[in-house]
């Protein structure tokens, strides 16, 4: 059956093939079908023939921006540290970008992780991606052995069941609250435009947590991260995490202990989220990657809400506006500052 996804898949294959055949790009970054019905596999096509395998569907949950700096670097001719790049343009990469991924690319460009000139971006408006954990819950613990997706419906089946649901019911939480489905930087648009969304209460879950008392919030936080195995899938799936040495690997001083420990796991999640402050585009790759189903997106989502409220800032919308933590305004909120007897302030920036 022809769907928006199948049409987009065809268009992506065509464009990617053209790009590789014409030599405009050295590699094309997309997805291929996975070996399981609920997962796709990020894939680097290096020959025109390989583009026939590319797919586009609601299971493309990994943020492709994550691969770009490394892939671009791997295509450069090898050189020693400090040696200047060779004359002339460096090999380019073609890539698919949705709204959030393109915003991550903007941030990577702003943070000098890559050059815009080396990217050929095929922009696809996102219809929202599927949360396979929601599918698992729907299947009630039974193994999902096949999945079909139309523009509005998702059908899953297994050994002795078949179920159908509206796509909307199984979309990822971040896609449900996404307001910018369209890519902000692109070289060619693929597929139809999805209008900017109006989300009724985009931060409803965050506000719900904020309304709890400190003790309940701590209990929620502990429960949320209790099953963390410290595999760092959330970190490694994130296009914002590119430090050559991550803070978890610093040994002198060592910020975080490395085994499973209540404090160390908490510290890891706090600092990981905090490092994404003002940069996170809520692409949801962290949550999609987590093998334990931890909803660590809630931590970055809180920061996103605060950045919006305190600094009126949404990251990655524009190559020319600075990220919120790389700038300041003299009149930035400072009600949380207590200044001794001279200037009695109230506490807690977010407290009403």
């Amino acid at each position, binding site marked *: 059956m022809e769907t928006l996804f199948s049409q987009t898949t065809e268009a992506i294959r065509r464009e990617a093939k053209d790009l590789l055949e014409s030599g405009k790009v050295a590699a094309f970054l997309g997805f291929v079908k996975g070996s*399981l019905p609920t997962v796709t596999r990020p894939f680097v096509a290096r020959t025109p023939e390989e583009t026939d395998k590319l797919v586009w569907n609601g299971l493309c949950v990994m943020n492709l921006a994550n691969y770009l700096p490394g892939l671009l670097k791997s295509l450069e001719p090898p050189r020693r540290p400090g040696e200047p790049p060779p004359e002339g343009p460096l090999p380019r990469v073609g890539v698919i970008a949705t709204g959030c991924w393109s915003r991550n690319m903007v941030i990577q460009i702003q943070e000098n992780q890559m050059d815009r000139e080396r990217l050929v971006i095929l922009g696809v408006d996102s219809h929202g991606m599927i949360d396979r954990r929601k599918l698992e819950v729907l299947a009630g613990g039974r193994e999902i052995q096949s999945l079909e997706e139309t523009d509005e419906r998702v059908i899953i089946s297994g050994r002795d069941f078949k179920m159908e649901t509206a796509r909307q019911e199984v979309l990822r939480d971040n896609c449900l609250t996404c307001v910018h489905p369209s890519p902000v930087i692109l070289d060619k648009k693929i597929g139809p435009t999805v209008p900017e969304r109006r989300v009724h209460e985009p931060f409803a879950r965050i506000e719900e947590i904020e309304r709890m008392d400190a003790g309940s919030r701590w209990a929620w936080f502990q429960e949320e991260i209790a099953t963390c*195995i410290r595999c760092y*899938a959330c970190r490694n799936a994130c296009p914002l995490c590119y430090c050559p040495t991550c803070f978890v690997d610093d040994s002198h001083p060592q910020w975080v202990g490395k085994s499973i420990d209540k404090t160390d796991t908490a510290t890891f999640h706090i600092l990981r989220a905090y490092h994404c402050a003002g940069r996170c585009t809520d692409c949801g790759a962290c949550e999609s990657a987590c093998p334990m189903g931890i909803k660590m997106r809630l931590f970055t989502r809180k920061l996103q809400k605060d950045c919006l409220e305190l600094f009126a800032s949404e990251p990655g919308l524009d190559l020319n506006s600075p990220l919120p933590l790389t700038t300041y305004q003299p009149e930035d909120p400072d009600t949380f500052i207590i200044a001794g007897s001279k200037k009695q302030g109230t506490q807690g920036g977010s407290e009403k």
Partner: protein
Amino acid sequence: MKILKLDNSDLKTLLTRWNETRDLFSPVEGNGKVGWQRIEPLAFNEPAEGVPRASIKVFFFPQPETLLEYSTRSGDRDAYVPRPAMGKGRERIILGVRPCDARSVMLNSLPFANDPYFKVRKDTTLIVGFTCERPCSTCFCSWTGGSPMGTEGMDIAMTKIEGGYLAAVLSEKGKELLGHLHDTKEASPEERKQLEALRKQAQKGTGPAGSPAEILRKKALMDLYNATFWQKLADSCINCGACTFLCPTCYCFDIQDETVKGKGRRIRYWDSCMFPLFTQHASGHNPRGQKIQRVRNRFMHKLKYFPERFGPLSCVGCGRCIRECPVNIDIREVMRDLLSIQ
């Protein structure tokens, strides 16, 4: 091998008795997350299809294991003199263990053969396994030398049949656990036949012909190492440790000292060859500085290096890495690719 026929009430009685002197653990689902938890005897449910998300490695190779302890108070006479930390604790029974997980304990005891900590854990942990009636599509234990009806590593192996379970008694400890039932509940010849039939049926594997471990042992190391498909894997891989940490047979570890308020300990904790720091020298030089090298090492260790050293693959075919890999790297494909190299 002695086989008993137990009905549900026998099982309940046993669990209640076991719980008096030992701690019971089983897979528990909560909040959409499945893990191994201490349970009350009557809370035990037959395990769900397939394997729980976490493997049982944590019982034998805890995260972390305290190796040594010491005082860090400068006034103490034995300050900074480490002593072994090896609490025996109560015996534990892990219930509902699938054949793949049980077999992983046997495989891990190969590298840990001389490890006193692993030994204590093994000596104080009993495994009551449940064989698989319905393997999942990601299960491939039969490729790796196991079987859905396998009993390796178990003290008792339960197989569900009409009206209860057939319990195969596999160790002295298993015999002890069954108490007087061991002598009074013997299965009938028909029931034994039924079990035999199930085992035979399970042997009809779907995997590659022959024994992959044996075939891969014989292949030339550098032919496998230099295969071209590794690049494709590295293209997709994000180099996280999800596969490693979920894997029942990944056993690499790091050792580190921790000191807090006058107390110090040397711990060993799970590490992953997927992390760049794993091999990085203090000088900054990194023998496996590239992603492709790290991805390759994990699979080569499981499928080539380990078999060369110990015989079997360091993989039990539980399929956890396949199911949970965020970018769908599938070890079965890697195995097929390696096997196809001439």
